[in-house]
């Protein structure tokens, strides 16, 4: 089910009405958790109810593992059984992910003699359970956080209940994994930041100001910006002959449009998810912080898909040693984390290449900026402005051109893109340029707002007034209703 579909609006309205029914005492919490589990199941299983089986197995297996980990941690545990349970559960989650998402690429990379074409065809026909990458990361976060003792004692007590209490603990744990606003495409919430929030919620506690900000901006970015840009950027994937025959202005307009589209699509989704979470009393983490303001790739990853970056840092980069084991190992860790982060996006080598190239730039920047750390703070204002402009142009275009590896089916198409860039055909393409200015312009305005908030917060505060905000939202809702793009799914749903 899509956030921008009619059936979702019906599900949301019904769930919200029932959620805040005046139920007294401890039953309120049970009712609300149960209702969210039902609503999340309808949301997830709407197109293909069979997918619920895998989700249910994941919830049940992780619930058992968490209970066992807590059980053994509460005892002497000389044999390290809690760690064994943790390891087994992590392996199980990764096996699920590998089988459903990566089996095709793993077996497809083997020599032809090792595996028959029929088996390969069967493996490739296995449908990808939507959102499996996201809920697997949720489950891993839960297992590790519980094992690391970073959830509160109260939550540990609740998740470790046995007997009849296990139903309640399994419900809480399942809600963390399947909570519908973040189930399919994040934000990836760490267990310690979600489970401690589970309690009875009250209507009067809803933060309506942030709900409307998130929902209006999120739907505007998705429906008005991303969906309208997608018709133009589809031309980037129509074939290498057409790309090679296109002129540089046309190609760059489409490339910038794709960069703006993927931001608007994913940031829009994340904002809608955060707004929906707030409606039900749950705070989900911010996922984007004006990423195209970045002056380096390092900064880009502190602003883009923040919840994934934080997950990779906490559960992969730091356990690998982070930057504590010398410069050489740091570069290897950066490279490895970005390679796996790239592959997390999809079971195709192009995503691994995308991640690896980002990892290479991160390592290169770390090397350069470390060796020049003393120079950076000593410049005068005009020099700093010039230097920042150059750095922004570098970072923005590096990100844009690396989107080619993310988008294009193969290297031949990327080659055709660059061939077209050098074609010398300087004709002005009407539709792509118009779309870039109108729809991409909204992403630029959004980032200018971010820049103002960061650099001149007092001036930005002057713009925030209920009347102007209401007027702006009125305009945005008008454009959502009268100028939507052709309805499309969210790009990150495929991951």
């Amino acid at each position, binding site marked *: 089910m899509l956030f921008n579909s009619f059936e979702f609006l019906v599900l949301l309205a019904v769930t919200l009405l029932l959620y805040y029914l005046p139920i007294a005492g401890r039953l309120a919490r049970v009712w609300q958790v149960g209702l969210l589990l039902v609503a999340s199941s309808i949301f997830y299983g709407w197109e293909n109810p069979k997918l619920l089986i895998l989700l249910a197995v994941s919830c049940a297996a992780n619930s058992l593992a968490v209970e066992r980990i807590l059980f053994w941690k509460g005892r002497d545990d000389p044999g390290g059984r809690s760690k064994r349970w943790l390891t087994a559960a992590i392996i199980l989650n990764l096996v699920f992910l590998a089988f459903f998402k990566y089996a095709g690429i793993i077996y497809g990379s083997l020599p032809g003699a090792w595996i028959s074409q029929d088996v390969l065809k069967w493996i490739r026909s296995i449908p990808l359970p939507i959102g499996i990458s996201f809920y697997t990361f949720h489950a891993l976060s839960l297992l590790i956080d519980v094992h690391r003792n970073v959830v509160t004692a109260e939550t540990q007590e609740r998740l470790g209940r046995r007997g009849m209490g296990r139903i309640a603990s399994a419900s809480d744990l399942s809600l963390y994994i399947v909570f519908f606003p973040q189930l399919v495409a994040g934000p990836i919430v760490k267990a310690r930041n979600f489970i401690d929030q589970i309690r009875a919620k009250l209507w009067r506690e809803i933060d309506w100001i942030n709900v409307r900000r998130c929902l209006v901006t999120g739907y505007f970015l998705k429906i008005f910006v991303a969906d309208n840009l997608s018709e133009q950027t589809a031309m980037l994937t129509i074939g290498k002959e057409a790309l090679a025959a296109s002129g540089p202005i046309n190609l760059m307009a489409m490339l910038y449009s794709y960069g703006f589209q993927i931001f608007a699509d994913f940031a829009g989704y994340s904002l809608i998810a955060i707004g929906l979470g707030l409606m039900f009393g749950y705070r989900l983490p911010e996922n984007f912080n004006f990423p195209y303001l970045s002056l380096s790739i390092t900064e880009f990853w502190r602003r883009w898909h923040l919840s994934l970056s934080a997950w990779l840092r906490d559960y992969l980069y730091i356990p690998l040693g982070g930057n504590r084991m010398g410069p050489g190992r740091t570069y290897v860790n950066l490279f490895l984390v970005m390679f796996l982060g790239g592959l997390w996006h999809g079971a195709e080598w192009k995503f691994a290449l995308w991640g690896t190239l980002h990892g290479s730039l991160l390592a290169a920047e770390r090397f350069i900026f470390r060796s020049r750390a003393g120079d950076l703070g000593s410049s005068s204002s005009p020099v700093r402005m010039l230097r920042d402009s150059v750095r922004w142009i570098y970072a923005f275009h590096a990100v844009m051109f690396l989107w080619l590896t993310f988008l294009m089916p193969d290297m031949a198409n990327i080659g055709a893109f660059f061939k077209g860039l050098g074609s010398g055909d300087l004709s002005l393409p009407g539709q792509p340029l*118009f779309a870039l200015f*109108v729809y991409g312009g909204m992403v630029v305005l959004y980032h200018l707002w971010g820049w103002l908030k960061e650099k001149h917060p007092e001036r930005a505060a002057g713009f925030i007034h209920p009347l102007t905000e*209401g007027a702006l939202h009125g305009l945005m809702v008008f*454009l959502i209703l009268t100028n939507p793009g052709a309805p499309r799914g969210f790009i990150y749903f495929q991951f």
Partner: protein
Amino acid sequence: MLRYLTGFVVIFAACFGLQTVALRLSGGKTLKSESNYFSSVARVQTETQGSPRVMLLGSSITGRLGDRAEKIAGVANLGCDGGSAMVTLRAIDEGLLPTAPVMIIEANTLAYELEHRGKDIGKAIHSDWFKVGLKTPNLSATARPTAFAYSWLIARKADGGVASGDEVLPITSKPGVLDPATSPALDEKSTALVEEMAGILKRLENKGSKIFIVMLPGVPKDFPRKEIAVALACKSGVPWWDLTEGLPANAVGFTDGLHLDALSAQKVMNTLRAQLIER
């Protein structure tokens, strides 16, 4: 909260008010949207209003005739950018769109249907949003605020305006029924498509429509497959007219190798008017 709502309602209402005025000033329809998809949906939504005498069904090649040639009263242009006449033919056959006494089917892109091109537009015609747009013009595809802006830009372009004049194409061919024995051999998939299309044409003829299959100037280089249209004409017995037959190379001009420029679009419309529309 009150101040927020005041700002919201005032601007929201003002936007709809401005849009309504703009729609009235533009005669209830915009020329073109930056989106091929919405341009097509807009054509289908606006052109099927009232009771058109003649319908032109086809792709953006047909759509160009409506965008750049002088409007002829009672002639509806249902060109679907990126698609083919089959998109609207199916919708008419299903009763989603009205029929017309004369229907001119563009032959150039009928083969696109083999690749289901234009299915998004077909899907849109089936949607509730399409029906809402028919009843509420402000929510129709033609009333998109960006369509007003894009139409204004097109109208300002030197070659973007609508042409006029009486010049026709310098050709001598006339519409005629093809001999079924000359039907080209087709593969299984193409044959099935021709069977389906012939069935739809038959049903439309039974409802009283006079149908013509017309090859317009402009051949899609990526997927010509003219034989499918010829086979359809042979199979259905519907009159066939090839406007490219005997057409001198410099008699028409294109803006991009496929779509006619304004002057040529006008010539084609004049030719169609003389032979098919005002018969």
